[in-house]
């Protein structure tokens, strides 16, 4: 497996180096970086290319094990796994009494844990981002979903608007490009 040492390289070089290696046909790679921004960016990029990524911390460095899915795997997985995206645009579920809406949303997210198929992504926009930030009562449920492989995206503009960007506690900050792309690529879209 090819190892790429990106330690000491300034952003965005680790991502560009990884991109080049994948474009050159590397099926499996180990990318070594020495800072969190590079780790997160390389991981996010590789996943956006349909690769799987495992991260290991070694001393002050991070090793990212990147494996590109081959055509057979992609075809197989496309046949078996449906992309279910859950789009949450409010911190409450349904319209009406707000207190009831909070309870329903908490229950919905908890119930998702026990059902199949597991969604591929949860997208939080507008007041929905209150659920992924400090003080949210559903962080444990979201953490359990992440452990099952669910990706959690929170709208960056919304976090800015509510002044909660620094208080994001789970998932990643996303943008309209990624959000719109995820919605378009979804096989099924769930809006609780």
């Amino acid at each position, binding site marked *: 497996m090819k190892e790429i040492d990106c330690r000491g390289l*300034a*952003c*965005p070089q680790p*991502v*560009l180096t990884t*991109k080049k290696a994948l474009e050159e046909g590397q099926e499996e790679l180990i990318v070594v970086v020495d800072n969190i*921004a*590079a780790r997160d*960016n390389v991981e*996010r*990029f590789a996943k*956006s290319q349909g690769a799987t990524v495992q991260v290991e911390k070694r001393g002050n460095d991070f090793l990212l094990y990147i494996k590109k899915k081959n055509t057979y795997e992609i075809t197989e997985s496309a046949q078996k796994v449906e992309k279910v995206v859950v789009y949450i645009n409010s911190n409450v579920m349904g319209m009406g009494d707000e207190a009831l809406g909070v309870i329903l949303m908490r229950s919905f997210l908890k119930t998702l844990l026990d059902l199949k198929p597991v969604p591929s992504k949860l997208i939080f926009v507008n007041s929905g981002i209150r659920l992924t930030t400090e003080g949210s009562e559903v962080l444990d449920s979201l953490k359990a979903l992440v452990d099952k492989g669910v990706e959690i995206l929170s709208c*960056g*503009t919304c976090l*800015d608007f509510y002044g909660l960007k620094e208080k994001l506690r789970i998932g990643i900050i996303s*943008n*309209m*490009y*990624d959000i719109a792309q995820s919605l378009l690529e979804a096989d099924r879209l769930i809006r609780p």
Partner: protein
Amino acid sequence: MKDRRITMDMTVLEVIDRYRNTESVFKKYDEQAGVCICCQSLFETIGEVATKYRLNLDQFLLDLEDAICPELHLHP
């Protein structure tokens, strides 16, 4: 004026990947933004970056264009 090659809906990564000379422009704007743009906003669009860090979008785009082809003289 020739058509612009960099638009506000392109991501930072997309811009740098296509036009490596633009990397120095992003570094130049880091100070104004108060963060390393390539570290924090690599997957965001130029428009989003300008809004988020309160940068002058038109100037930002002009500086990026200038970096890829200074002879175009897009500046007024």
